[in-house]
């Protein structure tokens, strides 16, 4: 497996020297799309850092900007109709300032990505062998046979039986779980330092999901790799991530070490999200606490806190001023809320039936 760790062409410090920059530092990142409807602010001022060997869970519902964020970190979004500002520092190098040629040396070699749907993310008409070996040969300048042997070793390490035979398979000949394993093998091939896993288990069955999450965790630990686990499922991050970042409408609303965050939720959105999940431990027919309404329009988001229109603790200040992301009592636990959970009592029970307004407001 030493082949996997051949140095890439761009110089990135391989070991964390004291005083070396963190592996990933995202600084006030904004990503917007120009659409016929206006500017869609998908990621709106996001900052965080990630150290080597850590797993960060990035949680949000659809439209929260989590997928766009993970792709902007990599610089993978097509540039047409894209507006981006802020910095993404990878080992101190600003990815947003890189030229396409430099980016391509980072992609696959230093930062790799696992996509949501392996059926669509694997090229349906290219044999698996070539899909694994092509960037091995590109980044690590391997010979055909070296790359082949490495691919077999990789398939073996992600738990694919008969790896040698599998090289000649096409993606459609594999089951969903096997396809996702192949995708992980592709992502791990060049020994990346950062793995972005974008909803890696969303389309999978729950027993297979557990296998894949275990596989990702094992590989992450073995390679001392940093991982960003993007998911809509708080359950997935609760068991697997060191840190959790919760996004809502393009912004980070709460982040912190997993245990600290789950044991002392500060942001009402996180609280509401947790409460809306049915629990195995609750009795049958427990009424769920739904978040009424729907996420805001990212073209013209509401003034103040973006969650305010759906928040049960909402106060006048929330609709006027945007709350900053600040640290609370626990170090490292940040949240963006004027009136964090526990600081104010509810204004009585909310209406139980959904009093939804018309379709578009």
């Amino acid at each position, binding site marked *: 497996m030493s082949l996997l760790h051949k140095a890439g062409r761009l110089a990135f410090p391989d070991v964390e020297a004291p005083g070396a920059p963190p592996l990933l530092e995202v600084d006030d990142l904004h990503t917007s799309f120009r659409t016929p409807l206006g500017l869609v602010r998908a990621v709106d001022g996001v900052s965080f850092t990630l150290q080597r060997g850590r797993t960060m869970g990035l949680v949000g519902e659809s439209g929260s900007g989590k997928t766009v964020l993970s792709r902007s970190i990599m610089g993978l979004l097509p540039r047409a*109709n894209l507006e981006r500002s802020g910095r993404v520092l990878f080992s101190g190098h600003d990815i947003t300032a890189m030229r396409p040629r430099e980016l391509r040396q980072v992609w696959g070699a230093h930062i790799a990505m696992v996509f949501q749907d392996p059926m669509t993310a694997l090229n349906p008409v290219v044999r698996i062998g070539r899909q694994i070996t092509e960037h091995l040969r590109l980044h690590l300048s391997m010979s055909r046979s070296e790359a082949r042997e490495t691919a077999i070793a990789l398939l073996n390490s992600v738990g694919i039986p008969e790896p040698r035979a599998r090289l000649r398979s096409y993606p459609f000949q594999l089951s969903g779980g096997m396809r996702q394993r192949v995708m992980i093998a592709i992502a791990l091939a060049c020994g990346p330092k950062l793995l972005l896993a974008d909803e890696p288990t969303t389309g999978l069955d729950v027993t297979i999901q557990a296998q894949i999450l275990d596989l990702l965790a094992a590989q992450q630990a073995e390679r001392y790799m940093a991982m960003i686990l993007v998911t809509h499922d708080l359950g997935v991050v609760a068991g697997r991530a060191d840190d959790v970042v919760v996004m809502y409408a393009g912004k980070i609303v709460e982040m912190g070490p997993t245990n600290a965050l789950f044991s002392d939720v500060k942001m009402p959105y996180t609280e509401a999200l947790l409460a809306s999940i049915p629990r195995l431990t609750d009795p049958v027919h427990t009424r769920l606490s739904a978040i009424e309404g729907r996420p805001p329009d990212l073209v013209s988001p509401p003034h103040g806190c973006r969650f305010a229109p759906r928040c049960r603790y909402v106060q006048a200040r929330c609709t006027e001023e945007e709350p900053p992301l600040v640290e609370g009592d626990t170090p490292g636990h940040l949240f963006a809320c004027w009136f964090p959970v526990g600081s104010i009592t509810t204004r009585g029970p909310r209406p139980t039936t959904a009093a939804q307004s018309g379709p*578009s407001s």
Partner: protein
Amino acid sequence: MPPSPDADAAALPAAGARLAVAASMSVPASSASKRKLGVVFWIAVAWICLVVVMAVFAGLLPIDGPDNLSYLSKLGSSFSHPFGTDELGRDLFSRVIFGSRVSLEVGFGSIFLGLVAGGFAGLIAGYMRGIFDAVTSAVANVILSFPALLLLITVAAFWGRAWWKITLIIAIIATAPLFYVVRSSTISFAGRDFVLAARTMGASRWRIVTREILPNVMPAAISFGLIGVAIAIVAEGTLSFLGLSVAAPTPSWGNIIAEGQSSTAASDPWIWIWPTLIMFMTLLALNIAGDRLQRFFDVREGRL
């Protein structure tokens, strides 16, 4: 395809638009209705209407008859003969307009017939499947297996050249692709849950086909049909260019062009350039209108 969360992906020009749309999911969904056909589409439609109106009311227009010989007038264009006259002194403008009648009759007539027959068969075959589908698909397949223009030319040669015969043959040829478009579109909609819902609510087959499927299939059929009209006009034009369509004194775009570029008239290229230009504009307008409609309704191209 009908709107889905990423329905307006088609309206966004960039690759990666899906992501942008995914990001804009929370935009009020009424956005989908903001897709526009665009100015170009309406110009194309206006041109088609103009040509059709001129053809229909050609007899009422203050122009010479297409066969009036005016030996006194010059060949070049003038106020009374905007396109000039041909070598026999016939007013070219009038001939182009009267000539459009044959092209449009054959073009729209054949596609209309083909759409009615092929569309009806396609709806039934796509929804009922089974033996009817097998038989109609086989027939359509055989029609498609024949080189269309060859069929047209030979049947015209063996059978005769009346415009209705040509319309009929083109209609038969056009039935096959129109059948396939409607059939495949029907199959894709018939598999949708809303059709299943209608079934479980007890809707009759007739009701499902007319109320649930037909409105969804129509856009594809019509936009494809518009492009079909252009193809049919070209087919007729080719035929009359070869002198195998309507008989000589009756003008049609194809035979005016053929006469115009024959050796005696080669000195004045405008005699064939004018009809060519008008035909070009009409074909362009039909293609653009069809294409814009297709995109408006997000019909995937070329998937037969």
